[in-house]
C-alpha cells in the first residue's frame, strides 16, 4: 500500500500580499502550501492505543477516512487556527490529498497601511469573499 501525501493550502488573503516568488518554482501556491508529514494509519485490526505517543505540541489534527479501496470518503480538520474549506484528491493519484483551509484572520500589519486605497479595497473585497466562503461551510 502506498503512503498518503497530505498538503494543506492556506487560502488566507495574507499569502497573496507577500511578494511573488522569484526563483521559478513551479508551485505558485508554495507560500501558502504546508506539508503535513506526520501521518499515522489506523487499520481495522489496530488497537485504540494509536493516538498515544510524544505528540505534545500538536495543534492541528487531520482525520482522513477511506474505504477498503483506499478512496478518500471524508476529511476532517480539528484546529483552533485553521478551518477546513474543502478537500480533493489528485486526479492521477488517490493517495495525494490536497486540503484547502483558511487560517485565522490577523491584522495586516503596519507595512500594509502604506498600500494605495485601490489595493486596500481589493483586500477588503477578498476578505469578504473569504468570510462568505467560510460562512457557507458552517
Amino acid at each position, binding site marked *: *500500500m*502506498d*503512503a*498518503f*501525501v*497530505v498538503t*494543506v493550502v*492556506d487560502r488566507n488573503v495574507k499569502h497573496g500580499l507577500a511578494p511573488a516568488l522569484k*526563483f521559478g*518554482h*513551479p*508551485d505558485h501556491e*508554495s*507560500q501558502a*502550501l*504546508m*506539508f*503535513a*508529514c*506526520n*501521518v*499515522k*494509519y*489506523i*487499520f*481495522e*485490526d*489496530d488497537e485504540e492505543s*494509536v*493516538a498515544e505517543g510524544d*505528540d505534545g*505540541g*500538536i*495543534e*492541528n*489534527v*487531520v*482525520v*482522513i*477516512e*477511506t*474505504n*477498503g479501496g*483506499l478512496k478518500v470518503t471524508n476529511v476532517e480538520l480539528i484546529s483552533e487556527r*485553521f478551518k477546513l474549506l474543502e478537500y480533493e484528491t*489528485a486526479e492521477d*493519484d488517490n493517495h*495525494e490529498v490536497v486540503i484547502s*483551509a483558511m487560517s485565522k484572520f490577523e491584522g495586516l500589519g503596519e507595512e500594509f497601511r502604506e498600500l494605495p486605497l485601490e489595493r486596500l479595497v481589493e483586500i477588503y473585497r477578498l476578505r469578504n469573499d473569504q468570510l462568505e466562503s467560510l460562512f457557507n461551510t458552517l
Partner: protein
Amino acid sequence: MNAENTIVYVKISGRTRDGFVDPPKFKWDLEKDKKLWSKVSRFGNQKKTIDWVRLSRDFETPEYFLRKRSYRLFAKHLKMLEQEIETKTRGLTAGSEIEDTDSANNNEEFEDNDGGEDDEFLASEGLKNLRSSKILNQKVPGDARAAESSLSELSNLSVSKSALEEALLDRLQL
C-alpha cells in the same frame, strides 16, 4: 501547519494492517521544496537518472515522498509551459491572421491593379486590332477615315449594285 504541530490520521475501513509500517515523521517545508526542484529540474541535462536513495538521505525524507513531490512539481511546471505555449501560439495565430488579411487585401489590390492594367492593355490592343480591321472600319461610326473609306466603298458598292441591276434586267430581258 507542519509535521511538528499537525498530525494526520488515515482511517482505513475494511483493511487490516498486514505488516504495513507507518512512515516516519519528517520535516518538509518551502526551503526543502525549492532545493528539491533545483535538483530534479536539472534532470535530463547532464544526469540521466535521479539517485533517489541519495536524495532521500540528503533531505532526510522518505523516498516515496520525494518521488511524488517531484512528479507533482514537474506536472505543474509542464502545465505552466503548456499555458505559456498556448498563449504565445494564440498571439502568433492572431498576428498571422492579421498579416494574412493584410496581404490578402494587398493581393486583391495588386490583382485589381494587374487586372486593370491587363484589361487596359488588352482593350487598347483590341481597339488597335478593331481599328485596323477593314470590315469594322466600315462600320465604326464617327471615325473620319472610316467614314471616308466607307463612303468610297459605298459608292463602289452602289456602282456594283447598278451593274448587277443592269445585268439582271438584261437577263430578264426587261
